[in-house]
């Protein structure tokens, strides 16, 4: 009915707007692209810099290795971005990596088909995410605390069931992490499966966040939870979905990691969550919620990845890398702050 109200007197206006409807979408879209361009530009600059400074940095083999190594952080960064956009956080993903990889390896060693064992791993990650979501929504535990608890519980659990020992997995378990597509020569050793998984996840979740109702509601909940609730959005459901996505992405990373090593890694993934959060933040996600993109998380992860590999190849120690990554996190957020203040 209100549609009638609104349509009736605007026939002229509508005709007008149709006349100019080629321009309409333009109506201000460019500004957004610019914001993201800054961070992507930083990535390109870093890449060029290391190509000049470090010999062998810009070789096909190295670039492929870089992509392969960065895939785990990227996957985690994409997942954790969802929780941060809702105004939360997920600290448990480092432990979830260890748990899911270990679950998959145990399942494979118990004689399950490899694919099924990996599905088991994924399921365990989804369960962790679901429990996080329930704690945050049902029990109203602050996300930092809930996922901190989960981080400890999951780590303790995986250490208990394995007695803190790495176990080798069947050889077939290693295909996912170590095999490549498009193997041509030793110069082009092919692109690892994890890289394809990473690209697929980035595209699917990027689209999901940007283009679907649930994605839109994710932003809305983070931007203004009460306004979202009063608009009829089921806030709890959206949050639980965000934590499940985070758990799922971490599980993918965990399985890939276990597969690359062809062993379970109950001690693996410690403090990985911090790298993932850093990647997300470098990519422009706001810890206050409501702001962030999958593309940003991907670029942020690659900045961390390039810094790590580039500095290593330039001869810098692991400790110096830590300093560099820390400075990049602080720097990128201060640039954001200055930019917002100007507005």
């Amino acid at each position, binding site marked *: 009915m209100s549609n009638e109200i609104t349509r009736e007197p605007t026939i002229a206006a509508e005709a007008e707007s149709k006349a100019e409807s080629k321009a309409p*979408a333009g109506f201000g879209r460019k500004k957004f692209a610019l914001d993201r361009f800054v961070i992507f530009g930083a990535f390109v600059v870093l890449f060029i810099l290391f190509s000049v400074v470090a010999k062998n940095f810009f070789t096909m083999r190295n670039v492929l290795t870089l992509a392969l190594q960065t895939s785990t952080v990227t996957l985690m960064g994409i997942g954790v971005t969802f929780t941060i956009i809702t105004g939360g956080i997920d600290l448990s993903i480092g432990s979830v990596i260890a748990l899911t990889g270990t679950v998959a390896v145990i399942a494979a060693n118990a004689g399950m088909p490899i694919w099924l064992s990996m599905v088991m791993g994924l399921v365990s990650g989804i369960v962790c995410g679901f429990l996080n979501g329930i704690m945050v929504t049902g029990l109203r535990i602050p996300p930092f605390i809930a996922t901190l608890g989960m981080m400890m519980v999951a780590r303790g659990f995986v250490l208990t069931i394995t007695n803190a020992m790495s176990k080798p997995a069947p050889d077939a378990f290693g295909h996912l992490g170590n095999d490549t597509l498009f193997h041509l020569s030793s110069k082009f050793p092919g692109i690892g499966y994890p890289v394809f998984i990473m690209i697929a996840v980035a595209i699917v979740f990027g689209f999901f966040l940007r283009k679907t109702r649930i994605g839109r509601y994710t932003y809305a909940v983070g931007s203004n939870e009460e306004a979202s609730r009063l608009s*009829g959005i089921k806030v709890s459901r959206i949050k639980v979905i965000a934590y499940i996505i985070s758990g799922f992405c971490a599980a993918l990373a965990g399985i890939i990691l276990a597969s690359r090593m062809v062993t379970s890694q109950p001690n693996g993934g410690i403090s990985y969550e911090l790298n993932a959060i850093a990647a997300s933040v470098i990519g422009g996600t706001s810890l206050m919620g409501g702001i962030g993109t999958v593309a940003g998380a991907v670029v942020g992860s690659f900045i961390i990845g390039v810094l790590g590999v580039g500095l290593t190849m330039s001869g810098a120690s692991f400790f110096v890398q830590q300093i560099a990554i820390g400075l990049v996190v602080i720097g990128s957020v201060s640039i954001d702050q200055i930019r917002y203040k100007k507005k």
Partner: protein
Amino acid sequence: MAEVLLHVEHVSKSFPGVQALDAVSFELRRGEVHALVGENGAGKSTLMKILSGVYRPDGGRIVYKGREVRFQNARESAEAGIGIIYQELNLVPHLSVAQNIYLGREPRSLLGYIDDRKMNVDAARILRELNVDIDPAVRLNKLSISKQQMVEIAKALSKDSEVLIMDEPTSALTETEIDELFKVIHKLRSRGVGIIYISHRLDELKHIVDRITVFRDGRYISTSDYASIGMEEIINKMVGRKLENLFPERRNLPTERKLLEVRNIVHGTVLKGISFDLYEGEILGIAGLMGAGRSELARAVFGADPRDSGDIIREGRKLDIRSPSDAIRNGIAYLSENRKEEGLAVKMRLDQNVTMANLGEVSRRFGIISGARELEATRTYVEELDIRTPSLLQVINNLSGGNQQKVVIAKWLFRDSRILIFDEPTRGIDVGAKYAIYELIERLAREGVGVILISSELPEILGMTDRVLVLHEGSLTATLRTADTSQEEILNYAAGLGSLGAHGASAALAASASGAGAPGRNAAPGASAR
């Protein structure tokens, strides 16, 4: 005649798009209580923020104790002896009363750590002077709002201010507390403190005020001795136009068809069994004082707050409303009084806000949003409601209050809501934009929408509605036909006095005519600024 303590000369201040103050002047003598009155947006708060160093003026000068001053920040003005009690509480809930009073200037012991004992003793002395029974060691958030307000006052007093600015100090106080405050004001005045007193409750001015200055739309209008000016004259100066022209003409009558029947809504002690009907094409007002349960009633009907019992019936069918999404599905919409906190996702874009309650309408299969359809819908409403925005993709934060309100309305129109509950729809919105909102509400009713209008401004209720529900402390005290009632009658029922009696209602009438009524403590931050 006492010495002039503070002289504001032709001070101007503008914000992007608003001339908040246009060469206003103001004078405060030692030992006087000087009232500053005006409608929302008259510029009172802006001037206070300039005096207290929060804003710097664009032009004009301020002479304080014979010297021109330019305060760079709040600290400088406080040190110079200008104290301010803001309408919103500026206290730290988790600290003790004494810690709040001396926040930032704690007394130190010889060794440099905080001397808690001295702090508590000093705080107790100030509180005693105020005649309030508050333990200085108790944590602030254990106190009622009115007691917290007294702490705020104690804090300002503790600074030995020579100029004290009080911005709506009584809005949360009880009668006895107000009396105590007035005693304190008298005491301060006899001590030679100059007090600038801002209040919408014109009735209370007669107890304390020496002179009164009126601002309107950022301009200085007049200053008079309070004794020589009548209430009516003050109001005319404040409003500066005939009240009748403020509202669009009602061009339809409600139909006989009941759109909504609300039966016996109970929620704790807040709502004590309220029933009412809403007809198609009707504008139904809800009036009442602060704390009467107006917003709570709306929120209970909308499912935003739980209710203990009560039925909501639409077209003969009982609705099972347990959450806002249930209400929305049944065509009910609620436009919260706190636009920024509860109505909009301010970091998100205009188009995203317009479609937020009805994304399904612009989505394809699998919940994928069609950007083109979203823009099309947004464009329709931007044009329809005349939302002034540089772009359909504008971030909401950058729009003015009036335009933000229109975005909220657009959101619910796009949802095809048949029942719209407006909670203080014009709070913090400038006069021109108000009229546009009123026209819109009138047009909605003409199209057959049932409108519930909650308002603290009685002129708004009288100018817009067909019927009025009057609430008092959670009970419905009257259902009145607007055409047959008056401000006095509504106020009597709102005060719980029953039908028309004498009881000082006409003074309160003036208060509501000032266009502000009882400002809520949790008013949107943007509402009281400027």
